[in-house]
């Protein structure tokens, strides 16, 4: 079984995240890390590999700096990595991103693609199903639990209205939520081994140069920062704070 895990480098949610006025992420302004959700996606693949025969490829599209997230995946246990990097892809919208990723997956070969349900920066949650459509295979997204077998994938899908038990024949694309798995830490041995594992760097020319043509695009017009909130009244409870709060809420016409 060949499993491709999609990973993304994102600005650390623990820090300030900044956009330029044209809506592009200001990568200088914040620390970049592997998205937490991708570590969980990789864990789903690794825990299958722990007791089954599987080859795991970590795949990202992103600027040169995104090599770091692939190295982390290799250290956690992925067997190889693919990095799609091309200046023409800078500032890609969802359509371009999904097309480039799908082309790279096809080139790598796969039985199963595992992604996070949504990134912490874009929060789109659409790339997995878009990739599945490009590849012409089923998608099962927002899975809180996953069962992998050589021909079939199944799991529980989390929606706003409850849960849904789903399955699909392989090959397929799935996405997992933060309830799916607790990622392991890379071991020292893993980090040392990662340095020797293969990491392929691909440009659009290495994929299909036509993948981006003819597609509609979503384009950012403006990005405006909201003024930061400031602290208001703060009281220390001396036995009467509940009543004070009720007064505040009444004065604000909130009760």
């Amino acid at each position, binding site marked *: 079984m060949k499993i491709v895990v999609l990973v993304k480098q994102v600005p650390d949610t*623990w820090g300030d995240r900044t*956009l330029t006025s044209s809506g592009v992420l200001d990568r200088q302004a914040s620390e970049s890390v592997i998205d937490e959700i991708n570590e969980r996606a990789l864990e789903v693949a690794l825990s299958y590999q722990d007791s089954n025969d599987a080859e795991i490829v970590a795949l990202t599209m992103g600027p040169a700096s995104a090599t770091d997230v692939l190295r982390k995946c290799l250290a956690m246990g992925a067997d190889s990595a693919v990095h799609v990097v091309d200046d023409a892809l800078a500032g890609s919208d969802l359509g371009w991103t999904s097309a480039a990723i799908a082309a790279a997956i096809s080139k790598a070969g796969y039985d199963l693609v595992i992604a996070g349900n949504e990134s912490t920066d874009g*929060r789109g949650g*659409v*790339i997995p*199903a878009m990739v599945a459509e490009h590849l012409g295979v089923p998608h099962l*997204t927002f899975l809180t639990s996953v069962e992998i077998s050589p021909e079939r994938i199944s799991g529980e899908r989390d929606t706003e209205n409850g849960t849904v038990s789903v399955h699909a024949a392989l090959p*397929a694309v799935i996405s997992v939520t933060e309830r799916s798995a607790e990622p392991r830490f890379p071991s020292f041995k893993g980090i040392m081994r990662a340095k020797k594992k293969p990491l392929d760097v691909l440009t659009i020319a290495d994929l299909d140069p036509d993948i981006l043509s003819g597609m509609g695009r979503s384009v950012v017009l403006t990005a405006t*920062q909201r003024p930061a909130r*400031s602290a208001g009244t703060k009281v220390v409870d001396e036995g009467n704070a509940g009543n004070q709060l009720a007064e505040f809420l009444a004065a604000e016409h909130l009760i």
Partner: protein
Amino acid sequence: MSNVLVLAEVSNTGQIRNSAGMLLAAASSLGTPVAVVAAAPGAGAALVEPLGALGAQLVYVAETDQVDVLLSSPQVEALVAAAHALTASTILLANSADGRDVAARLAVRLTAGLAIDAIGVREENGRIVATHSVFGGSYTVESAFDGEVAIVTVRQGAIEGKADAAIPTVTTESISVDAASSGVIDAVHEAVTATDRPELRAATTVVSGGRGLGSAEKFVLVEHLADALGAAVGASRAAVDAGYVDHALQVGQTGVTVAPQLYIALGISGAIQHRAGMQTAKTIVAINKDADAPIFDIADFGIVGDVFTVVPQLIEAIGKRTS
């Protein structure tokens, strides 16, 4: 006026999901609102009147007997068929799990531009412009589209107002769906909404509890305050991880984003990832034992105190005022 398609999500028991009203309201500001439904043969007729009441001027019923079996593909085929038949260039869906999957596959199929999680949509100089709130409300971003078709998913609860009720015309077509490229639905476990509390995403008041509540049993304090205020209940990820409440109630970076009139945080430290889901609330109230908790940095009214003494007093005071 041009046709604007709305995917009306329907439960497997035939209930139209709440998002349809908001989407039809948005569609009516852009053109002629058309509700598109995928339905089992014969099941569409019952949806026409309620969709008209929500503002649909036309209901496009795409019939397939696979609607309860295949994941997303019946809805994708329904919208593809409707977009061709009605030459629609704008398609609106809910930013729900189901809506996003359908939007995703549809965008690739129609080589359309896709914008997600809009909090507003408008037309400007013949162009569709979507507004988004990103990085937990730190930025407002406007986006437009190059290309012929624009697909927008709209954040649930983000658009207020309602389209005028209509008596819709109905078009019924049968569609074929490719099972080979589709996931299969084995069973649906609809969440039991036993409470009459408002829906978290659309509530005007939200009371959330964190790890500070200490246990699932003691979390009922949050529910009592919520009920005294007619509010929805939310939670931090730590409270969800500790099993106090269901994950569906998680507010924050990887949970629900809310923007109510009033947000009350009980025993929540105010980590940046929690704030990402609530910091655009109009008024924020926080009660926390720790005077240095970061939640106080964004609270309009903060109380340094124990939730188990402050909240019962507050509930009593509210009771006195409202009785």
